[in-house]
């Protein structure tokens, strides 16, 4: 029973400033594709500049055209300025296409490279981190954060490479005619920036309010139409019950959104009125300058024309670019935190000979939990021995298993393999001799062969090896269910077949057996397999595991008998150890569990 943390409802407030984030991101993103990235920057600069050149060429052409009216210039000059304008447009068009195309290319290329780095990093993490809610958020959002990081960096770079050159150019250009023009134009854009800031604040506030409601809303929807609820809600006649709550929460959501949107719309509208008034001022100023012969007709019309473009670009930067950046900062932080997560470090290059595994006063607690899941356990698994671990739900069986394999490191005490501490052995070497069938075995949406060989995907094998492990697990590749033998895709989604729960479990068993091992760990390996088959599998398993160490975790005490010793766990502690007969004679916890099950078969 865990009360839900109220804080988790609140939005993550960014802790890092934009520049600090950028300082960390830029080198990573750049290094992923340095040449393409630089090319992208060059094209952006040229593209930005080409917009400025267009305005300039337009002005020159209009000036010449105006002179032509009064026959004050030669046709040749007009034509030259016309051709220059045409070239400017042509170049601009080509650059525009190239810039956008290169940017798309760079984006996807970098995302791919950075994903590879994420995969590697995840493989080096401590498996226990996946149980830590504070770290899980970083892990889950790292992928999205990575994509946002690329967009963020590219957007930010384009402000400096594309927009800034254009704005600077236009500023200088306007300044050269009439300094006040440049200044007052800049002022027009102040209200736009202010709106954007207020807007994001209003929506952040509304989001705080609507996030919990939205969660309820989504949930009630799934109660009616979610796959896991559908048949039960229908049979119970629960539609009206949930629909009422669904529509109520929709209504609340709409109201929150309505209020926030009306507010921001009003603010935007009033700010926009300022912008328009500023625009009027500029217009009057332009007209005045025109009358005073400070600027020509060409300048007037070119500037008038470019205000619209300047406005649109400015808006794109402030509302689009910077707005998106602000939204993605949260996940970007998750990504950066992920990159900084501690990796499992080990002393280099110990490769112990396979031997006994010893637990010395081992205790273990999960992150953020005070209670020990495993308490003060001492146990030795001798080379070649088979041990069964039994006990009630939540008694710590699976946790103990993870400590023995070295997936988890103990909080207190130590676990040794042939005398070497599991925390000193590099992860790769540590697991080299171990294989497992986990309780939560995976159903890989891959072909049957890959599903089995994934346990050791660098091993060279012949088809007879596959045949052998499949025989033990009870899989027949020639079964009509496997339409394409070992090449059958085990997933409907990828145009393959669906397996039943029992068949999947056999695949998991075959997978575990395929890997070369000295120790095999079986965590409830037959829960979904029918009794008759279960017996057969256990017998075959006992045959092939001779001479190898094995640990079996099971609910069904009957099957624990194949073990050399049985370990009985309760509340994280070892209650009893012994052979089946010894434990039955002792008449304690094991006997209690055993009789409860046995009575159904007597």
């Amino acid at each position: 029973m865990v009360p839900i943390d109220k804080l988790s409802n609140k939005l993550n407030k960014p802790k890092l400033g934009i520049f600090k984030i950028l300082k960390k991101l830029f080198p990573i993103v750049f290094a992923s594709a340095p040449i393409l990235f630089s090319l992208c920057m060059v094209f952006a600069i040229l593209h930005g500049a080409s917009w400025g050149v267009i305005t300039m060429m337009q002005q020159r052409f209009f000036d010449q055209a105006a002179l032509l009216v009064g026959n004050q210039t030669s046709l040749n000059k007009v034509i030259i300025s016309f051709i220059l304008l045409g070239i400017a447009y042509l170049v601009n068009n080509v650059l525009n296409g190239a810039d956008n195309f290169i940017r798309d290319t760079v984006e996807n290329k970098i995302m791919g490279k950075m994903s590879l780095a994420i995969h590697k990093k995840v493989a080096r993490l401590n498996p226990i981190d996946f149980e830590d809610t504070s770290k899980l958020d970083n892990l889950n959002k790292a992928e999205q954060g990575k994509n946002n990081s690329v967009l963020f960096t590219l957007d930010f770079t384009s402000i400096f490479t594309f927009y800034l050159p254009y704005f600077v150019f236009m500023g200088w250009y306007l300044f050269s005619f009439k300094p006040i023009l440049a200044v007052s134009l800049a002022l027009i854009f102040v209200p736009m920036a202010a709106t954007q800031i207020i807007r994001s604040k209003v929506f952040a506030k509304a989001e705080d309010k609507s996030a919990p409601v939205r969660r309820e809303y989504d949930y009630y929807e799934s109660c009616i139409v979610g796959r896991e609820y559908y048949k039960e809600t229908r049979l119970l006649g629960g539609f009206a019950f949930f629909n009422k709550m669904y529509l109520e929460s929709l209504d609340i959501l709409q109201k929150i959104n309505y209020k926030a949107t009306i507010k921001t719309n009003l603010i935007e509208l009033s700010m926009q009125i300022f912008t328009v008034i500023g625009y009027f001022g500029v217009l009057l100023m332009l007209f005045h300058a025109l009358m005073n012969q400070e600027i020509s007709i060409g300048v007037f019309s070119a500037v008038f024309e470019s205000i619209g473009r300047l406005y649109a670009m400015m808006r794109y930067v402030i509302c689009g670019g910077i707005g998106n950046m602000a939204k993605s900062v949260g996940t970007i932080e998750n990504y950066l935190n992920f990159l900084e997560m501690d990796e499992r470090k080990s002393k280099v290059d110990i490769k112990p000979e396979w031997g006994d595994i010893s637990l010395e006063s081992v205790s273990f607690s999960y992150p953020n939990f005070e209670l020990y899941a495993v308490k003060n356990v001492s146990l030795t698994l001798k080379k070649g021995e088979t041990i069964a671990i039994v006990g009630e739900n939540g008694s710590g069986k699976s946790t103990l298993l993870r400590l023995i394999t070295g997936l988890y490191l103990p909080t207190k005490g130590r676990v040794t393999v042939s005398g070497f501490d599991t925390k000193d052995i590099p992860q790769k070497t540590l697991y080299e001799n171990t294989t497992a069938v986990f309780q939560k075995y995976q159903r890989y949406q891959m072909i049957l062969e890959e599903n089995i060989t994934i346990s050791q995907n660098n091993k060279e094998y012949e088809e007879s090896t596959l045949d052998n492990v499949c025989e033990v697990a009870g899989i027949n590749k020639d079964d009509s269910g496997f339409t394409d033998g070992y090449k059958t895709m085990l997933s409907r989604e990828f145009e393959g077949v669906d397996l039943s729960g029992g068949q999947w479990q056999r695949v998991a068993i075959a997978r575990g057996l395929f890997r070369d091992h000295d120790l095999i760990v079986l965590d409830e390996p037959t829960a979904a397999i029918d009794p008759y088959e279960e017996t057969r599998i256990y017998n075959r398993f006992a045959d092939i595991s001779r001479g190898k160490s094995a640990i079996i975790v099971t609910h069904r005490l009957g099957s624990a008998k194949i073990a050399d010793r049985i370990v009985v766990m309760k509340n994280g502690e070892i209650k009893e150890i012994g052979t089946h007969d010894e434990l039955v004679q002792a008449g304690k916890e094991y006997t209690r569990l055993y009789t409860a099950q046995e009575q159904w078969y007597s």
Partner: protein
Amino acid sequence: MDKIILKNKTYKLIDFIKIPFVICPFYTLAEIINKVLQALISPIQVLIIANFIDTAIDIFNGQAEKISIYLPLSLLMLIVAYSYLNEHLINFVNLKLRMRITTIYKKAIIEKRAKLQYQHIENNDTWDLISRTCGDPVERLIEGFVNLLNISNIVIRVVSILFILMTQVLWAGVVIIAISVPLFFLSIKAGKDAYEASKEAEKHKRRASYLNNVLLGRDSVEERTLFNYTDGVSNKWYEKYEAARKIVLKVDLKYYVKMKGSSIITLFISLCIIAVLLIPLSNGRITIGMFIGLVNKTLELVHAMSWELMEVMNKLVKNKEFLRDLTAFFGLSETEGALDLPCVTKDFKFENIEFKNVYFKYPGTENYILKGLSMLLQKNLHYAFVGINGAGKTTITKLLTGMYDNFEGEILINGKSIRNYSQAELKGIFSVVHQDFAKYYITLKDNIALGDILKFDKQSIYEAISLMDLDNLIDSLPDGINTYLGKITENGVDLSGGQWQRIAIARNLYSSSLIRILDEPTAALDPVAESNIYEMFSKVSNGKSTIFITHRLGAARIADEIIVIDGGKVKEKGRHENLLEKGGVYAQMFESQRSWYQ
């Protein structure tokens, strides 16, 4: 109003306008008028700017009074004010429209989804269709609506600029029309091609995205670490990612070449027109103001006819895809009476259920799950269905509860075909605890009370609670039975799997149904808890019929009759002792399990 939206029909482009219009005619009209006005402003702007510049030059040359500028100047300001403010004003309309559509449309969609025949939920293809269509239907509807408006906006703008051009230089307009028609079709084709290719890339992307989950997911962490498969799978991921990326790259390249190609063609034509316009300009047939206005607008055409046109056409293809999905979604078959409340069953006396030679296969599959199943279930008896995985035990539950009715043969309840019972009646007769029972994140009380939605009887709720040994749990909860369970509400309390299971069974106990089905509800329980539940159930189920589905034989022995199902047929039936004596399949299975305890 619901009827108009919820129609099973072929949705066409026009429905993007019709649907908002039916829901909210005033605001829809306002949006349309605004878009048209926005387009018409463009040619008017040319005239106003021309007028302004010409007047300014006249004043400058002393041919006009300074006062004559005020009209063109105010017109210019008016047009500036309009183009900068209208979008913010229309935002208010947009908000209202969106809200109205959301309220009505969401309601219609959830009802349709809740009424679907159950097969659509289990079938992956239709489930994908449902998820796709219902992901964000309002947003996609509005996108389609806005995109149509944008297309007409572009068309009006281009046509009106052409009109002005033609009044100045007739043939220039004709040439542009001649060139823009093929460009228009090129855009449509480019949009389609890009869409087709992106579908091709989608296959690789889906594969890559799956592999990425394997490499990063929490579920796979144990196997990933122990088996150390990251490098191998990561390489495969990169192959797929690059394959998708290269397809997209090619499409992108083609797209840009086509778009920029049409840009450059339009640019070239525009430049020709401008060059020709120089002649009337030099001999004074058009003013410099008109010349400047026309040049700017002609160059604007380049943008409108490449970027903008391509973009809206690209979106149009996606909009059409949505309409296809919408058509298919509303065309999915429904179960009549699916939303009805259960019937009160007081007058109904359950006598028996009979299966007569029932054959059944899931829609869209080839293999029969039930192959000639025949059996008779009598009132007041406790049945156990046993058999290996995939033998068809759970399928029987789905047939009895009316989730599927496309079986062959006959299923009779009290001698009347199950197909003649309404959904409401079946809901009243049966209650089920599924293997994957629902955990409702509502109050504990409501969780149990849902078992019988027609009555509210606090006494019976407490009875169900004590039968399931939940009293201690309730004492420990902050608000007793009114405590919210699960992680949805802020003060919700999460329970362990075992506690949830007890609540699911308590819900079933509270139900007034005549026949209770327990479909392997103990699969995840440890031995002691398991045996306690069996005993408890045999105690409380007197007076009602119970069907207990299991593959653990120990549980079956308390049944009055055990029905062994194998290969979609009844293999054996009888009491535990009789079946053991008979020495058939059941005896064999039982022996193999018992052998572990001897």
